[in-house]
């Protein structure tokens, strides 16, 4: 889903960044946020609604709306749309409101 040709943007090839999504190894590229890397991999569902467990993707992509909150390296409620992707990150779909204390 990455744009290959564009009349204005310069889309230079960037080094890949490996990370884990629900335990599965995926690759983003340098400059990605967690949410953009997941979207480029075809992952649209990021979280679930708290009560009805409906699938949720990102909505605003600028850190406003909380629709993209996920568990990252054990920490819940990370705004994945504005959090830069780092090598080896463990990203998981969040269920419920998230637990502050590690299990």
């Amino acid at each position, binding site marked *: *889903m990455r744009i290959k040709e*564009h009349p204005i943007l310069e889309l230079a090839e960037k080094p890949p960044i490996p990370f884990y999504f629900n335990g599965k190894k995926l690759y983003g590229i340098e*400059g990605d946020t967690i949410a953009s890397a997941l979207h480029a991999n075809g992952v649209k569902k990021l979280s679930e609604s708290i009560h009805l467990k409906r699938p949720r993707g990102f909505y605003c992509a600028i850190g406003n709306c909380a629709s993209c909150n996920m568990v990252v390296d054990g920490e819940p409620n990370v705004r994945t749309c504005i959090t830069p992707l780092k090598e080896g990150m463990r990203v998981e779909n969040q269920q419920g409101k998230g637990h502050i204390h590690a299990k």
Partner: protein
Amino acid sequence: MQNKEAIVIGGGPAGLTAAFELLQAGASVCLIDRNERLGGQLTKQTHMFFGSEKQYASHRGIDILEILTNALGKYGNKLEILTQTTVVGMYRDKVLACVKGDKFFKLKGEKIVFATGASEKALPFENNDLPGVYAAGAVQTLMNEYGIKPGEKVLMVGSGNIGLIVSYQLMQAGVEVVGLVEAADRIGGYLVHASKIKRLGVDILTKTSVKRAIGKESVEAAEIWDLDEQWQGIEGTERTLEVDTICVAVGLAPLTELLQQMGVKVQYVREFGGNVPVLDENYQTSVEGVYACGDLVNIEEASSAMVEGRIAGINAARSLGYDVENADFRIKALHHELKDLRGGPPGDKVRKGLKKLGVAT
């Protein structure tokens, strides 16, 4: 807690020009933004701006951002930039509660300029929470900042400038825009943008809206229908469009939460999508030493936000006791620029909103 001379909250077009004017006058500035990069929405605006040369017309937003940040460069020692920092609380005595990563700290500003911008509104329809229903700005971010397509086939909802421009940018990225629906009886944005996408074969359907999104885990189709004179959907006019993305461009709402926490007087203005701070002619809020500018005070183009940022910045610098060269003349000229930007039929809504606030246009 650290004391600062001037704090600017938000590093978009308004915040950047406000910071520049303060620095140029001689003040020290702490500029705070929650993103990794400064620029606000300029970071994804690949289209050329209108207006006049003074607001960098015929430059692309991404290039204007470079001009604005370069201008800050020479004030290195007086400018402190805190990125990836979110202001999570505001107290009445001008104390800010901030979070950066896992650190919490407080700052106090002698003068504070708010340039927090606005957030995109959602639209109520069945299944509007499905992944694949995205705000137009989010789609723009995904494409123009990260080089990723939101999907392959898109239904655009809303024909304001954002809806029109993002439709064009989707096509530039190689995405098919299946249609554009607009609930009103006419196109909301500039006709030059509308003509551009019409020429490329996109149908703009007025008095039409989205009835529901269809899909299980993400959007698989969209059902649209005609609206009657009371803006209600007409049974029997439904048709289904095969799309994987519904892009919602139905306006913005100012981000006034922080201002309201510190007791700033606000007023609901429908034309600006929600509460906006009540300002005096210096862009000062009801709290002395607290200024506001940009989309936070009225929803407009980035061109106006840049002008407002300058007015707020100059006034904040003057209230700190700095002698701003030609201040009265410059402020008068800036107000003229705003008047020009708000002229003509596209400025109807802005002028109507400002009138409710008692601002002369």
